[in-house]
């Protein structure tokens, strides 16, 4: 199979990061889908922040007369109430706070660790790669539930622990994928050329490897976000995630799933919010990928 240089342009990529970012931003702004996604995300974030001002009821107020009632515009229960008689509109908006934060931050944590770890292992190869990947195998195998239980026991309840717990598992897949891509790139001529020009390993990984694997990485991040948001509700189950009366989309959806037949609104609204967010993130992710893609320049 004849393989021509992957992309000669990337060897002569501009050295200054600023112009790279500037042109990336310009391309991103021109991408209508990505901008649409960004606007939707901004609206949802704004709703989450403004939740107390736009909902008619407090998120933790119980109305004994309105237990599990369907959406009703007149009474201010726009999304209906849950089985404790609390306003689902307010709760969905408050849930966005936790879920957006956890979804985005935890994904970024796993992205950063996974990409660096995977790129280093894939680029260096040999024994280093072998040891690094065996560590990944070990972390995959350890019982996650006990890890979470021990976290709660030793560190109590702390929002930061959610990121630690989720980050600890989510970066593994990312590392495996990045490593695979890096290994494939390593043998491409333009990397070898950069090497011949005397570029250091760090520089090659940073300038040539990572930008060239952003495609699959971005796609994978958009897959990670929903996983992370739903994983958070499992952490709540173990006593690590959010505590009542605070809530999250993951918790709302798993509560709603139980009543999908008798109270469909309790599933429908949080699930729709989650779906819309993920679509928006997806468009934004694709746009980011295109904007940062060195081949498109």
């Amino acid at each position: 199979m004849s393989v021509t240089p992957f992309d000669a342009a990337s060897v002569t990529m501009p050295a200054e990061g600023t112009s790279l970012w500037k042109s990336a931003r310009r391309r991103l702004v021109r991408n209508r889908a990505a901008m649409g996604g960004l606007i939707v995300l901004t609206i949802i974030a704004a709703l989450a922040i403004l939740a107390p001002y736009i909902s008619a009821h407090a998120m933790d107020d119980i109305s004994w007369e309105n237990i599990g009632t369907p959406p009703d515009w007149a009474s201010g229960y726009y999304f209906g109430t849950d089985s404790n008689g609390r306003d689902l509109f307010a709760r969905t908006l408050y849930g966005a706070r936790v879920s957006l934060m956890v979804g985005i931050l935890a994904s970024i944590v796993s992205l950063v660790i996974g990409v660096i770890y995977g790129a280093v292992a894939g680029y260096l190869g040999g024994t280093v790669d072998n040891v690094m990947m065996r560590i990944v195998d070990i972390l995959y195998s350890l019982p996650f539930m006990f890890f979470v239980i021990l976290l709660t026991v030793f560190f109590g309840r702390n929002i930061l622990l959610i990121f630690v717990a989720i980050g600890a598992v989510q970066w593994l897949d990312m590392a495996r994928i990045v490593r695979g891509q890096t290994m494939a790139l390593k043998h491409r001529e333009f990397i070898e050329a950069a090497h011949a020009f005397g570029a250091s390993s760090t520089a090659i990984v940073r300038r040539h490897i990572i930008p060239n694997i952003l495609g699959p990485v971005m796609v994978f991040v958009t897959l990670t976000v929903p996983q992370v948001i739903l994983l958070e509700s499992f952490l709540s189950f173990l006593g690590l995630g959010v505590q009542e009366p605070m809530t999250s989309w993951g918790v709302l959806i798993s509560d709603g799933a139980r009543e999908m037949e008798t109270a469909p609104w309790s599933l429908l609204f949080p699930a729709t919010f989650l779906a819309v967010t993920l679509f928006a993130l997806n468009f934004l992710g694709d746009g980011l990928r295109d904007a940062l893609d060195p081949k498109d320049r």
Partner: protein
Amino acid sequence: MLRTRAFGFGMAVALLSTTAPLAWAQELAENQVLRLGNGSEPQTLDPQISENTQDSHLERDLYEGLVIIDKDGKVTPAQAESWTVSPDGLTYSFKLRAGLKWSDGTPLTAEDFVYSWRRAVDPATGSKYSFLYYPIKNAEDIATAVNKDVKSLGVRAPDPQTFEVTLKSPTGYFVRLISHARFLPVNRASIEKYGNQFTRAGNLVTNGAFMLKEWTPQSRIVAVKNPNYWDAASVKLSEVDYYPIENQNEELKRYRAGELDVTNEVPSDQVDFIRKELPGELTIVPYLGSYYMGFNLEQPPFKGNLKLREALSMVIDREAIVAKITKTGEQPAYSWVPPGIAGYQPQYVDWKDMPMPARIAKAKELYKEAGYGPDKPLNLEIMYNTSENHKKIMIAIAAMMKQALGVNVTLVNQEFKVFLETRKEKKVTQLFRAGWIADYADPNTFAELLQSDAGLNDMGYNNPEYDKLVKTAALTVDPEKRIQMLQDAEKLVVHDLPMMPIYDYVNKRMIKPYVKGFDLNTLGYFYSKNVSIAKH
């Protein structure tokens, strides 16, 4: 009196059998198979080692003890046809039915009970429930390895038909106690032959109305009619299938799709839907159990602060909780021992019948006297183990406390085993969820729990007077005096308020209209041998 009733019953049976034998035969469906949701996978079918209710359900069908508790909660002869008690209340002599057999056709004698009960207290067996045997002479010493001679247990078989038990001290509830599944007999020959594999299908030899045919872990257990059962002639079912279904919503769906005849549970958030769509199929029976919130009496803020405990307990609108949250006929609880134990009068808090507004007004006073108020609100942490139902109840309780008294409540949920551990340590807990289900239908099963040295007294309740009353009651032969002492003890509890009762449990199941004779008693027991499937 008893005789006339028996006569009347006999007459009715005679009438039935002469006038409508054909109709009776036609009513039964051809396929006498009961398909039963049974919660989760049983831990074991070894009755001496079992711990869980779903194990015991199966065991009561597969095995049979000396006596059973019938649907009305009455002690009824089973493998024993009669028994006598010595005047000092120390010796029980059970007369076994003639011609009892194991499912493999070998005879069952009093020696089998001797073997099984010794096996239960033998430390080598590793039975968690061996303490139920403690009223029997030497049982406690054997179970705790103080006495190494298992044979010294107070049980013997003077002849193959007679099983004699000697107690440590008179125990008024002894016959009720031995209806518990931990007292079921096991087959010695099969245990010696198969060791720890004796409960497998094909190996298991039992003496109940049904015998094990198939056991596929996490999938199903199939039991078929035991032809060697003494009353096999009146057993209608040919087969019982037990399905371990952990997810209550899916269990209900399988029931609705016709894959199950009886469910193990009913999800409370589906109750309104069920009442509307499946009227008459929801069966609710009181269950001897108490759902309560414990106060940690060893730490502030509840240590030595009775007024605060009282104030908090008073503002809980239990009627609202059972009507709007649990929804399945649970009874609001104001006593420690739930009602429903024959001859026992539960002791209630004195504000039981006070209307809610008056209660809240009184609670506000007490709250103030306890040193709290709007400017100095109580910051309270409520701890519970993760579960949908608990969560809903805790949210309601927190809201009630906040609304009435302005208490700032933080809810903390923990994974079950972590929760148990935290609760037991009595260090960080303040107010915590707890529950207790009776082991046998006697107030003693509740009274014991609040003794200062009881394993589950996670409140740290310590009232010497209470301990003394419960201990003396256990040694009292005269049933009336014994009950009186236990009632006096409970009176102390509702005064001291080491916990606040919330509601008394119920057992709830979906039962198809064509399933006849599936009767639950207040202990949640049912016997498939009484069940038949009507034509449908």
